[in-house]
């Protein structure tokens, strides 16, 4: 095992290689839970509509950023949509769910007024363009937990 502390060369200064290890758990809340459960159980992508400005938020949220009203009306949106932006990320980190390179994208699903932040799969990064039509691919049932990762990725629609 590596030593916990290490003396710097040529000076009386020590570096401590340590960690902060406190597990954290975050509640999704009523609206968030419902959204994640629909992904898991029914492979449905749900949004919420603002009664004031009519904007449909996907993923479902409870508050409108402009009106500050509570969003109470549930709307199912299409699993297909348009790529608003994307990146091919080459730097790996221990949180990433799959190995790099990862293609991240923001997709505006048909029927939604906001973008959905997720990953893209089955893509040739060279051919990817803003405006590409994509569709959601879900994980298979036994791998599908109530989480944003119930969706495996979005893939380009075949022309």
């Amino acid at each position: 095992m590596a030593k916990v502390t290490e003396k710097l060369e040529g000076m009386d200064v020590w570096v401590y290689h340590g960690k902060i290890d406190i597990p954290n758990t975050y509640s999704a809340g009523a609206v968030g839970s419902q959204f994640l459960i629909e992904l898991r159980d029914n492979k449905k992508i749900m949004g919420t509509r603002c009664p004031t400005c009519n904007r449909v938020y996907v993923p479902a949220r409870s508050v409108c950023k402009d009106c500050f009203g509570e969003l109470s009306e549930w709307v199912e949106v299409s699993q297909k949509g348009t790529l608003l932006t994307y990146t091919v990320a080459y730097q790996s980190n221990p949180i990433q769910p799959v190995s790099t390179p990862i293609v991240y994208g923001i997709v505006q699903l048909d029927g939604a007024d906001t973008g959905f932040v997720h990953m893209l799969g089955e893509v040739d990064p060279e051919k990817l363009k803003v405006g590409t039509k994509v569709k959601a691919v879900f994980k298979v049932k036994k791998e599908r937990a109530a989480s944003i990762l119930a969706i495996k990725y979005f893939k380009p629609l075949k022309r």
Partner: protein
Amino acid sequence: MAGRVAIVGVGQTRHTSRRDDVNLPEMVGEAVRAALADAQLSIKDIESFIFSNMESFEGLLLPDHGMITEVGAAGKPGLKVTGGGTTGSEAVGEACNLVSAGLFDITMVVSWQKHDCGDATAGISAAAVPIAAKGLVVGAVSEFAKQALSYINQSGATEEHAAMVRLKADRCACRNPYAHLRLGLKGLEDYLKSGYLVWPIRMLDFCPQSCGACVVVLASEERAKKIHKKPVWVVDFEVAHQEPFSAGSFGDPTGTETYSQDVAAERLYKRNGITDVRKQVDLAEIYEPSTWEEMSLYEHFHFCEKNEGWKLIEKGVTEIEGEFPVNPSGGVIASNPIGATPVIRIAEAALQIRGDAGEHQATRDVKTAIATALGGPNWTAMFLLKRSL
């Protein structure tokens, strides 16, 4: 201060050990909506925001950033302050400065902690970098255990007095619908049944880890008078920090050091002509992490002479019906969403001054109140609030 500042709205969530029905931003949003309703303002009226929590407890970076939509701060100025347990007070202080400086007319302080995200004791232990003190600091509990031992030795207080503090807090909390622990304790036996966390601190001596949020709306003099029939004036505030003592983190068990509480209290009282606190101030909401600390704080805030804090408890002076009520809300032993805790003290003191505290309204008329906070290595913040200028 340049311009006068008043509290024109307060709101809090119920405080509880776990909130699964809301996510963190939604929980905080509840308190924002409650405060807006109290102030009869719309979110559009709020010109700027100050956020406050202790960042480590939820394991987040920039925790304010995740809740901007839910608190209605998109497109608005603001920033987050952090620090020790006093962070909420420092947030209210900064919001007062923004209004007093004339930069804004209406500012909202948004404070919270959602302890079901993590482990507060572990979070506090992480205040000691292992390179300097690994394994020797265990949360706040061990530090308040030292404080308790010293207090027992110096003042002659006994466990019965700690029990009386706990029972007082519980009686008050049971009248406060927002309080976290409302246990209905019957007497000394219930207290003595409680196990030790770190000797001599029992589970019942110590504050819980709560989920909750508290919001206050502050306004300039001109606006305040229009917004609320009963604005509560922030007359003055004082903050005194302190580096860790060589012998303890939250107190000096050796009895040889000056406390920040004494320093803050002396400065605040002197500036405001307060020579006899219990005569000139009607009520206090103090940040008491433990029963023993409450008795000690009575002394450091000059509610009584040194080593006589336990006598105030014994005589019932600080009861809700007493001559000088302390923590009619149930205090921190009943509810402790840390980042919000100092703001709750200020909000509760304001409600008492307005006469709007409902079931836990103090018996005596409250025109002047102080609200305090404790944090870090014995940091103190104090607010002086009044019904009229």
